[in-house]
């Protein structure tokens, strides 16, 4: 059933699970719980469509490095950010779950296998195939060719809205904004919601899940903790901490023989003609003590290529271009080199509460985000490895921008493209084996509570370079099975 929170709306006395937030995580979880036979109340703060009133609740401040305004980096209505995502998918790699020498606070309490069992179900939801296997590219075994797969992209509200509306065991409630809780003896008894006209309801359930996104999950938990003396996972001050993004920059240009396809690429054409993704091997990451990273080669058409000829490409000795063209039978590809990579989890990068409050009296978020020396070192090592690969193979040449090669801790968005991040908000309510190290346990239960859970990318203790949606969906499906065991 679908409802809008009004004075006339009357919820059930009790639900099995109350899920707060109807984006990728919340919708996936609610759908899974219904498949498992549980009754669900799904609260969405926004409406069916974008509204300024709802979106304004996402405003906040950013302190530290250059970053997007917080109210443009995400969408606050039914479907959440899946209403405008690009559909790039790839599950996290096995190496991403392990502690890294480069980052003392990295590593998950679960392993890739724990989520891999949910990939087929996630793939059905996202409408993606399994990514092709990686290929080691060089004898030194430092570089891999990796693949992403692409969702149409699935708009979750369109896909699941009609299913929910026709389901008596599901109560989707729009304009339903979390403002408070009733909590005693490690149990959340009720969550309190308000609409935009001040009408309030309290929802009772066996279990409650906050699934509001990579900034809001921290913000709402911090807000609730002010009332409950940090009992909700914040006994060690961990809520909001270890927040992460994927630094994303255009880092150079390239000239490569032929198109970007490899000889065994027939199955993936035509996409692989225009895009190539390289990543370091785990052995290279360990040896260099760096984080994970992917370098993307974007082939461009003649118009943009012309611009490059008059800026960067002309500084390449003409004989090099001639030699490459001769080898490739006159066919050369040129384009931009872009990078998106992992930053190490740092205590200082965090979501905090500001002094200003929103229309519901909830403090607005303040995002503290800095990129460390490790972030720069990771980019430089991997970018140089990728660039030297083409030179050693004599199949192309790569130019890296001055700021990439500089030893100074500087980053630049002058190359355009998606910059300085991927709109990927991760961490803040990290999963861990103890309350000393995180906010939730390996089953997403908030430490200090028995029935409050978190879903979404805020759970990530470290991020790899892969776009987070596939992992978000896998985690939500896993949580769905766990809650089913608890609630039945």
């Amino acid at each position: 059933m679908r409802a809008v929170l009004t004075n006339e709306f009357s919820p059930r006395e009790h639900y099995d699970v109350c899920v707060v937030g109807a984006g990728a995580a919340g919708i996936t979880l609610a759908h899974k719980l219904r498949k498992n036979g549980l009754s669900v109340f799904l609260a969405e703060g926004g409406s069916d469509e974008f509204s300024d009133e709802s979106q304004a609740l996402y405003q906040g401040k950013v302190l530290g490095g250059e970053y997007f305004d917080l109210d443009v980096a995400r969408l606050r209505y039914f479907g959440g950010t899946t209403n405008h995502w690009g559909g790039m998918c790839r599950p996290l790699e096995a190496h991403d779950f392990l502690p890294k020498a480069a980052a003392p606070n990295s590593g998950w309490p679960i392993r890739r296998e724990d989520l891999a069992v949910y990939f087929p179900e996630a793939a059905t939801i996202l409408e993606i195939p399994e990514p092709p296997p990686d290929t080691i590219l060089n004898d030194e075994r430092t570089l891999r060719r990796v693949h992403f797969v692409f969702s149409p992209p699935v708009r979750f509200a369109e896909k699941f809205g009609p299913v929910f509306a026709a389901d008596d065991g599901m109560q989707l409630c729009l304009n339903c904004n979390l403002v408070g809780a009733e909590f005693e003896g490690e149990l959340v008894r009720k969550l309190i919601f308000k609409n935009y006209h001040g009408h309030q309801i309290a929802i009772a359930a066996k279990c409650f899940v906050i699934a509001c996104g990579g900034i809001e999950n921290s913000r709402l938990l911090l807000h609730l903790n002010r009332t409950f003396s940090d009992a909700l996972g914040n006994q060690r001050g961990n809520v909001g901490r270890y927040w992460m993004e994927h630094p994303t920059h255009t880092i150079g240009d390239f000239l490569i023989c032929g198109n970007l396809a490899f000889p065994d690429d027939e199955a993936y054409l035509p996409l692989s003609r225009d895009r190539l993704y390289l990543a370091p091997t785990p052995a290279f990451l360990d040896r260099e003590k760096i984080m994970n990273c992917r370098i993307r080669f974007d082939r461009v058409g003649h118009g943009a290529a012309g611009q490059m000829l008059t800026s960067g490409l002309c500084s390449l000795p003409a004989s090099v271009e001639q030699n490459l063209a001769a080898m490739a039978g006159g066919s050369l590809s040129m384009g931009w080199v872009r990078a998106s990579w992992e930053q190490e989890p740092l205590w200082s990068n965090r979501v905090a509460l500001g002094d200003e409050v929103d229309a519901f009296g909830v403090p607005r978020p303040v995002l503290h985000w800095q990129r460390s020396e490790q972030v720069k070192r990771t980019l430089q090592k991997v970018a140089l490895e990728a660039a030297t690969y083409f030179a050693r193979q004599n199949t192309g040449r790569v130019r890296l921008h001055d700021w990439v090669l500089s030893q100074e801790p500087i980053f630049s968005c002058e190359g355009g493209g998606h910059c300085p991040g991927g709109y990927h908000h991760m961490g803040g309510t990290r999963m861990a084996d103890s309350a000393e190290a995180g906010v939730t346990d390996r089953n997403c239960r908030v430490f200090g509570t028995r029935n409050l859970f978190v879903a979404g990318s805020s759970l990530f203790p470290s991020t790899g370079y892969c776009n987070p949606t596939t992992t978000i969906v896998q985690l939500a499906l896993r949580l769905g099975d766990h809650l089913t065991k608890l609630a039945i």
Partner: protein
Amino acid sequence: MGAMRHLASICSSRRTFLALVLATLAMPFPRWASKWLDDDLVIVNGWILRRSDLDSGH
């Protein structure tokens, strides 16, 4: 960036390696403008080149 634009204006009219060398000598390039990574690979104006790339330009 000024240096790069100047270089672009030079080499768009005479795309020869000689022009590149002259420009390199004349312009205040960053210190990594020419840096050998090993016996074979060198960074010139951000391009990762091979030793033979430089030889073949003469």
